[in-house]
Each structure stands twice: as C-alpha cells, then as structure tokens.
C-alpha cells in the first residue's frame, strides 16, 4: 500500500475520496467509541481531558514548514481530521476538511479545547522554540494514537526541511492509504458478553488542598537515567512501571503520615494509583482511537504503615493478576453495555452531560488518589532520532485527584511529568526526594 513516490496532490485526491466515501456526500460522520463518549460528557473548562505529547528538536522550529508538514500529514489521519458535532442524544464526529493551524505555546498547557465549536479540531499543534507539542482531547485518542501522530508529524517536518530518509520505520507517511482498522471502535470489537457483576470501590485518600484558578496547571518534570532506574527495578525483580508506581504510593503514604493527627485520621483511606493499560498490547488492534482501560494498584494504610518492600510486593502481584485480556474483556462489555441501554440512548444529551459531570466528581474518580500513565520506550528511526532531542508526555488535568503523572523514556532518559492544579508541589517533593534517596540522579524542570 505504501507508495513513497506518489506526489502530494495525488495523495490528497486519494484521501479526500476516502473521506467522502462512495456516497459522494460532502462529509462523513462516525460515532464516538466508548471511552470518547464518556470523555465528551464530562469535558468542560474545569475538566479539560486534554493530554500533551511533545518532541524537542535540535534546532528552533520553522513555523511555516511545520504548518506545511501538518497540512501534508493530516490527510493520512482522516479520523483525526474531524470536528465534534452535537445531536439531541449524543456527540458525534464529522469530517472537517479544513487544515489545523499552529498555535503559540502557553505557560500553562493542557487547557480546555472547545471541540464542539465550528471547524475546531480536537487537537492543537503548538510550537515553542525547539519544541513541537500536540495537545489532544481525550475524546479523540489515547497516548498511543497521539504518539503515532506526533511521530508522523515530526518525520514529515523533517521531510519538508529537506531531510530525506530511506527508511521511516513504523512512522506513518502522508502517501499511505489509511487502513479501516485504524478507525475501529476496538472496545466494541473485543468486548464479550460475560456476567461478572460490577465491583464498587470505596473512596480513596484524596489530596485535601484547594485547587488553583481554572486554567492554572503546574508542570514538574523529572529527568533521570533510564539505565539506573532499570537497575533498581531489576533488583526487586519488577518492571519500571511497577517500580515507579511503588515509589508514587510510598510518597503518598509519607504525605499522608506527615499530616497532623486530626487530618491523618480523617484521610486514613486506601491509597490507589490509576494505571492506564494500553489494550493494543493485549488485543491485536491497530485502532488510532481510544483503546485503553486502567487498573488500580494500591495499599490500605488503615491496616498499618507499609515499608517499600511490602508496597513493591502489593503492586507487582496486583498488576500481574489484573493485566490480563480476560479481565478487560468483561470490563469492556460492562462499559459498552451502558451506552447500549435504550433508556440512556433516549436521554437528552444535556441531561447526560449534567449527570455525567456530577458522576465524575462523586463516582469513580474519588476511588483513586493519583494517576500514573506510562507510554513506554519511544523508538524512532535512526535518521529521525538524531534530530529529536527529547520526547515528553504531560498528563491531563485531574480536578478531583489534583495531581497526576505521565512517564515516557526516550534515548537514555526517563521523563516523569507531574501535572497539578494545586499551588504546592507537595506530592512531587516527596516523590522526587524518594527517587533521589534510592540513588537515582534527578534533574527537575518546571513551567
């Protein structure tokens, strides 16, 4: 399918025809998948549901060339070239044949994108000095889909700058035809009818500080050598994700025990971390839309204070048990069943949004203390890698839990980005001090 020599004009024609489809209509529409439906109901300036992926190049970004690269590459991602429309009962995607523009970067990232505005894309490409950043509405895609698009944009930017490569590796190129499986609602495809009942978790320890004004989002980035982190995690016989989750839980436990007696008593609840799992690793899907679920490893401080070894054991065994296709198949079925119910389908969208936003604050989200999402190790073809200095992943704002973290490793570094909506970096302080205590050198950067 790949035709590297096809001129762009031909490519546009192919993809525009693909978008329009056989019915010759001016535009096409498709429904939101299960996770996107949930995100669309709660998305607001207070709950932006926007995450960010960025690549820092080895020289200052040329905006004109970046815009050209974006115009070229967007046709390869027709499922991203959309605008969210509102009907009486649901939101849906409609093809948006405009071209997305480049935005200047802001001090505070990951703020609300008004995706239902006319011609608004559900992502924004931002440039600042040497960095290309893309902020995605979670309604559109998850970290894996976002990373695929970022890699394709960076490669096309290099191509526009005249850097030619023999081998672009797994990077998607503008002259390829999008595959139908990239559009798929993988939740529906892989869910299986099973009746296991729904477990309701008690509320977890929630950081009891007041959020800052809406729009303020503090980022604290910790850079550390991946080799050293790997060595430390191997000494416990666990993965890097399990190791970092354990340190996160240990830090939250220390934070809890640093409270005065009355506050400690009030907040003595389970500490759980929400760890998203990329389901493409468990199911053979190539979808570019959301396809992840989460697990909640944690400890219960009501049973007593845990030492690090105990936390590691809890996290390791929990994750080994929970990260299993069978467990996720039933969760997918339960989640997709909700949106299939006739009663909910016939409920007006305004009512769904009203109850959805309140549900976000009072159900589900209070079941965990923080979030840690790991995008894994980023590999770029050699030709591209020498122009890309750093890759970053900034988590979405979490209004209930207040602090979240996202990690990604690139070249010889592990980047952990904490995002918080409270003033004091109290969680980050405990976390990075714990990392340093374990003999891992850390460099801190902030916005």
């Amino acid at each position, binding site marked *: 399918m790949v035709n590297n020599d096809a001129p762009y004009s031909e490519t546009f024609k192919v993809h525009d025809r693909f978008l329009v489809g056989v019915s010759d209509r001016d535009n096409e529409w498709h429904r939101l998948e299960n996770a996107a439906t949930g995100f669309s109901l709660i998305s607001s300036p207070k709950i932006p549901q926007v995450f960010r992926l960025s690549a820092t190049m080895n020289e200052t970004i040329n905006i004109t060339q970046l815009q050209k690269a974006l115009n070229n590459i967007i046709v390869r991602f027709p499922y991203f070239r959309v605008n969210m429309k509102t009907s009486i009962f649901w939101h849906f995607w409609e093809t948006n044949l405009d071209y997305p523009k480049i935005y200047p*970067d802001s001090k505070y990232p990951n703020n609300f994108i008004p995706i239902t505005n006319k011609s608004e894309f559900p992502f924004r490409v931002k440039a600042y000095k040497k960095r290309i950043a893309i902020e995605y509405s979670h309604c559109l895609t998850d970290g894996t889909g976002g990373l695929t698009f970022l890699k394709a944009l960076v490669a096309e930017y290099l191509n526009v700058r005249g850097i030619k490569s023999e081998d672009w590796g797994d990077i998607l190129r503008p002259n390829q035809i999008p595959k139908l499986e990239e559009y798929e609602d993988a939740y529906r495809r892989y869910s299986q009818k099973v009746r296991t009942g729904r477990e309701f978790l008690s509320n977890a320890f929630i950081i009891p500080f007041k959020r800052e004004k809406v729009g303020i989002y503090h980022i604290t980035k910790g850079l550390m050598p991946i080799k050293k982190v790997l060595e430390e995690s191997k000494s416990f016989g666990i993965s890097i994700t399990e190791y970092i989750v354990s340190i996160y839980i240990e830090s939250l436990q220390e934070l809890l025990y640093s409270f005065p007696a009355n506050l400690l008593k009030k907040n003595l609840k389970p500490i759980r971390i929400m760890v998203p799992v990329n389901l493409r690793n468990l199911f053979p899907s190539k979808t570019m839309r959301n396809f992840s679920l989460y697990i909640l490893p944690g400890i219960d401080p009501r049973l007593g204070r845990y030492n690090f070894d105990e936390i590691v054991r809890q996290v390791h065994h929990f994750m080994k048990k929970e990260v299993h296709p069978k467990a996720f198949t039933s969760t997918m079925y339960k989640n997709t069943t909700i949106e299939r119910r006739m009663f909910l389908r016939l409920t007006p969208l305004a009512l769904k949004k009203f109850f959805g936003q309140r549900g976000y604050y009072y159900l589900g989200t209070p079941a965990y203390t923080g979030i840690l999402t790991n995008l894994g190790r980023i590999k770029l073809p050699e030709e591209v890698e020498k122009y890309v200095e750093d890759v970053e992943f900034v988590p979405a704002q979490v209004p209930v839990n207040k602090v979240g973290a996202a990690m990604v490793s690139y070249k010889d570094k592990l980047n952990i980005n904490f995002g918080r909506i409270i003033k004091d970096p109290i969680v980050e302080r405990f976390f990075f*001090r714990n990392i340093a205590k374990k003999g891992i050198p850390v460099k801190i950067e902030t916005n």
Partner: protein
Amino acid sequence: MSYCINCNVEVDSFIEKCPLCQSIIQKSDNIDQIFEEKKYPTEIIEEEKDEPKISDKRKRFVAWEAVSVSAVVPLLIVLGINMFVERSFTITWGKYPLTGIVLAWLLISVPLLLLKRPILIVVGETLSLIAFLVLIDFYDNGAIDWYYQIALPIIGLTALVTSIVVILSIKVKNKGVNIAAFVLFGISAMCLGLDLIILSYIHETITIKWSLYVIIPLTIIGGFLLYLHYRLTRIVDMKRVLEIKKKLKA
C-alpha cells in the same frame, strides 16, 4: 549545574529557588548558562470559551422572543378551532383558553424582561393576575361580582406578603436560617389571610378556623430559627460545633 541540597535534585542553572522546596539554590562557580533555557513561555494564553460570549441580557431577550413566538401557535390554533366550530368570526368559549395563554405569556415575560428588579416583577405579575381574574369574572355573566370579595383580596395579600419576604431577605445583612424564618412567617400570614378571606366570603362574618393550626407551629419554629441566627451564633461558634472546616490551602 545547580543543585538543591534539601531535595538532592539537579535544577536548571538559571533557577534561583528549588521548584520542590523553595530553598535558595547554591550556585557552583562553573555554571554554564548557555545551553539551558526556560522550557515554557512566560505568557499565559487565555483559552477560548466553549461558545462565543453572548450577554445575559441578549440571552434573556432571545428567550422572551422564543416564548412569544411559541405562545402565538396555541393562540392561533384555539382561535381557528373556535371560529371553525362556531362557523362565524365571533369568539365564544375560546376566550377562556386565549386569556389563559396571554396570562402565561405575561407571567413568563415579566421576570425575563425585568430581571434584577424584584419590586417591578412583583408589581407586573400582580397586575397580570388581577387583569386575568377580572376578565374571567366578567366572561362568566357579564358582571364583576366574586372578584372583589375573593380574587382581589387574595392577590393583594399574596403580593404584599411576597414583597415583604423578598425585600427582607435581600436587605438583611447576615443571611442564614433567618431567611427560612421569614418564609415561615410569610406562610403563616398567607394562611391567616386566606382563612379570613374565604370564611368571611362563605359565612359573611369575620372568623378564623384552620389557619391557627398552621400559624402556631410555624411561628414557634420561625422564632426558634431567629433565636438560633441572632443570639446563639454569637455565643457559640456553630462551624466548630458542626465540624465545618475550610479546606487547607496548599
């Protein structure tokens, strides 16, 4: 390279205070500031709002326009059916629903157009009700009879009690359970008035019966609420008693 000795972390060379603990960073002599720069811009770009901003006044006007146009539809339907049934251009039974539709339109229009003017709203709503009941009484037998004895006193009483409660609730400095007390006293006054007006109309003598059963408990509860608000809260810190704490500021 700069280093925070409290947190044991490295920071950018241009950083003065540790981002984690805010302690002053000790600078070493061989700082190389050339390769380190701020990772984010200092400017804050305000994100666009979800929808273009429309003023509240404009929104209210659009809502009023929609209500007005919507009211015309049943108005024309009733008018049409009345004329079709009667086979003439005279309005017979249709005047009752037509007057009702006009009243509904007035009751919705007044608060939409006069928001934040509570006195004018009360006056507007009262006049609308007065006009409606006068017309209904007149349609009945071509004369105004029960209106003066029943309708006008009840409307007057409702307008008076509502105005007093609303004005008191707005003007009072410390708002709390005292508002609930004002509402209870208002309900008591309404019951007393209704009892007087209705029984006087039926028996043609001034008597009070059932309203006492409502007035006694409501006055006692209202009085207790006022005591709670104006006396007890000065002596006891109620927030402390009820364990209401402000959230900690980080």
